[in-house]
């Protein structure tokens, strides 16, 4: 294969596959279950069958992911993928990460809009004096501890100091970006033991980050009154850090699977896009965290 002129390599078009339809079904069952559960809970009853439908949907998705990625791994190891195919995967992953960036941009945009424009207007700034008539007592400061209507949205008593757990978490996450890069260098130099150890260390750091993040949430809920329903500060705080935490959890899962594949002897020094995609994703969650640390915790 290597002797082929790249322009004449065959682009692999896979045969029929059941995974797309399984995936669609899985997503449909998942969102139907989640919606039923949320509607029942908001109506005051328990989740009803929603929980179970949701669980079934998630299991179908897990089955699809496992099967689909197994197919891809097998095809890759059979040498069906040309250099051109590899470029398609790279573009696919790159643009997927760009779409994730835009998803976070919506929440960062909401945070900036509230802090720079909507909040001050609600406090009576600018020419919009009429907004002040709603809650004349309201003064806008950030972090917002006193909401316009504290009866509906009691504010938090305190916010989380950036220089304790969040700082530690920043150091951990940046270190994990470094360790995954060391793992990549080891892979390219065909040093399999070093690769395994650096990757293992990355996963351990990721798990520590997640544990600390959960501790921070428990502290916020139990001691600070900082909750999802504590007004716009809590809403932006938990949505940004929560979605980031969810992405870290997904990234940890991806890195763990890559670790298992490394231990099974997958990947060669020249051909390891699966590893690189996981590393790209990991750097992406790291960069988002730096944005979070600056704009949610510090500033």
């Amino acid at each position, binding site marked *: 294969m290597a002797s082929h002129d790249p*322009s*004449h390599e*065959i*682009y692999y*078009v*896979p045969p*029929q*596959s*059941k995974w*797309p*339809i399984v995936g*669609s*079904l899985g*997503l*449909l069952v998942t*969102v*139907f279950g*989640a*919606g039923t559960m*949320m*509607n029942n*809970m*908001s109506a005051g009853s328990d989740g009803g069958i929603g929980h179970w439908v949701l669980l079934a949907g998630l299991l179908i998705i897990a089955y699809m992911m496992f099967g*689909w990625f197994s197919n891809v791994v097998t095809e890759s190891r059979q040498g069906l993928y040309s250099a*051109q195919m590899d470029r*398609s*995967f790279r*573009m*696919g992953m790159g*643009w*997927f990460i*760009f*779409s994730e960036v*835009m*998803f976070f*941009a*919506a*929440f960062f*945009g*909401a945070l900036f*809009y*509230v802090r720079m424009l*909507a909040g001050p207007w*609600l406090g009576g700034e*600018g*020419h919009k004096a009429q907004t002040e008539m709603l809650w004349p007592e309201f003064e806008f400061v950030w972090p917002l501890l006193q*909401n*316009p*209507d504290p009866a*509906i*949205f009691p504010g938090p008593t305190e916010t989380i100091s950036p220089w304790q757990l969040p700082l530690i978490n920043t150091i951990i996450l940046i270190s994990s970006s470094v360790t995954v890069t060391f793992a990549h260098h080891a892979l390219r130099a065909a040093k399999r033991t070093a690769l395994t150890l650096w990757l293992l260390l990355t996963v351990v750091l990721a798990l520590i980050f997640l544990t600390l993040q959960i501790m921070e949430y428990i502290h916020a809920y139990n001691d600070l009154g900082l909750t*999802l*329903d*504590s*007004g*716009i500060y809590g*809403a*932006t705080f*938990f*949505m940004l850090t929560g979605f980031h935490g969810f992405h870290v959890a997904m990234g940890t899962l991806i890195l763990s699977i890559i670790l298992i594949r490394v231990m099974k002897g997958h990947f060669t020094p020249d051909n390891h896009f699966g590893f690189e995609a996981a590393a790209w994703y990991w750097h992406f969650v790291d960069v988002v965290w730096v944005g979070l640390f600056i704009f949610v915790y510090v500033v």
Partner: protein
Amino acid sequence: MSAVIDHHHADHAHGPAKGLMRWVLTTNHKDIGSMYLWFSFAMFLLGGSMAMVIRAELFQPGLQLVQPEFFNQMTTTHGLIMVFGAVMPAFVGLANWMIPLMIGAPDMALPRMNNFSFWLLPAAFGLLLSTLFMEGGGPNFGWTFYAPLSTTYAPPSVTFFIFAIHLAGISSIMGAINIIATVLNLRAPGMTLMKMPLFVWTWLITAFLLIAVMPVLAGAVTMMLMDIHFGTSFFNAAGGGDPVMFQHIFWFFGHPEVYIMILPAFGAVSMIIPAFSRKPLFGYTSMVYATGAIAFLSFAVWAHHMFTVGIPLTGELFFMYATMLIAVPTGVKVFNWVSTMFRGSLTFEAPMLFSVAFVILFTIGGFSGLMLAMAPADFQYHDTYFVVAHFHYVLVPGAIFGIFASAYYWLPKWTGFMYDEVLAKTHFWMSFVGMNLAFFPMHFVGLAGMPRRIPDYNMMFANFNMVSSVGAFMFGATQLLFLYIVIKCIRGGPKAAANPWEGAEGLEWTVPSPAPYHTFTTPPEVK
């Protein structure tokens, strides 16, 4: 070389599978393209029947056929289905069918994901339509689903509406990633970027817009979900949030979205007009740059949808001028289309008729858009039927005529048969007259102050509304003729040559009609 070709054939021996599972499990871009096109046409008829309900209710002043609650659900789901279910999937279907043929690629870059993109759509729209039968009814807050109408005051089914939007969004993002990877990575040797057909160019830019804004829409509906079920206050001022913030986030998605719906039509028309003028496209390079400029500007104009909501004067001015700036690259395009036709040897087959009507009527829609772009004037026009007239003029003779033109242009390539030209011309003229009768009077009632989204109206608007309704019924019924023409063309007709159009150029016309199940497994050489 021949050994290589034989090898390719051995690799791709698998032709279409038999039975229903061919469509369910397929990885073939032509199968998937056909499914997209049929799905979008089904949604077009469904969303169209909702429009018929709306026009029937508005045939006369007073409430006669439906309750206002149901009328609201009809206006909302009509908009959602037409935008997300009819226009967008139709263009993705055209992209699937034609982009690999136009650039000499064996298939889409990621064929399995391609099928995933498609099969999410029936899931999304099944879920969306099921909300109409739920307790409290379906979405009734307008297709723009402004908070707090869509949060505090929404029916419980809004939860499923949100998830339907999520699914449709995932589908769009995967489809767009696939198109970008295909265009950037799978072009035949010699097919440089500036040799690409304009339909490929406009889709490349559209795909970029999709990846940039669909996640923002996902963010907006996720915030709604959190406000409704988990006590956050993104869109509730009592907790320090802001309902106007919803509009900002929505329109940051929504304005590029309107270009997502029109840019591929620009591309298709830019290929059809030269074919039937028997002249190369005038100003190819400027067309590419104009498309890029429109896409770039579309990110900086969103608040022109919100002039009356109370944004600062500097904001009004900025968004007013930025919006007017879009008229410049759009004007370049219209100029180029007209110049292409100038002194050409024109013939008026159905694709050309739809394309010429596209140029004229889209320009009318563009001009009414300029009127709406003027902030002080918009205070008068906002939320009137003038807005309805404006966006239907860009979407019906814009996006939808673009789709019809493309369908007639490429039907011989898809089916191997020529469509019935007389019936197709009838379809065009009935659509043209019906559409203008339906939407032109809306300008007048809008300027006179008739509000949109209301099931009843002042007696003085009665005559124009009756004309509108008659035109709408005519336009709606005519689309059944289109269905008949397409089925007739699939079942037979005069044999189509590989290139049935005298002036058409491009790689898609070098393969036989109908296009074989697998094309360009060995990339062609482009000079």
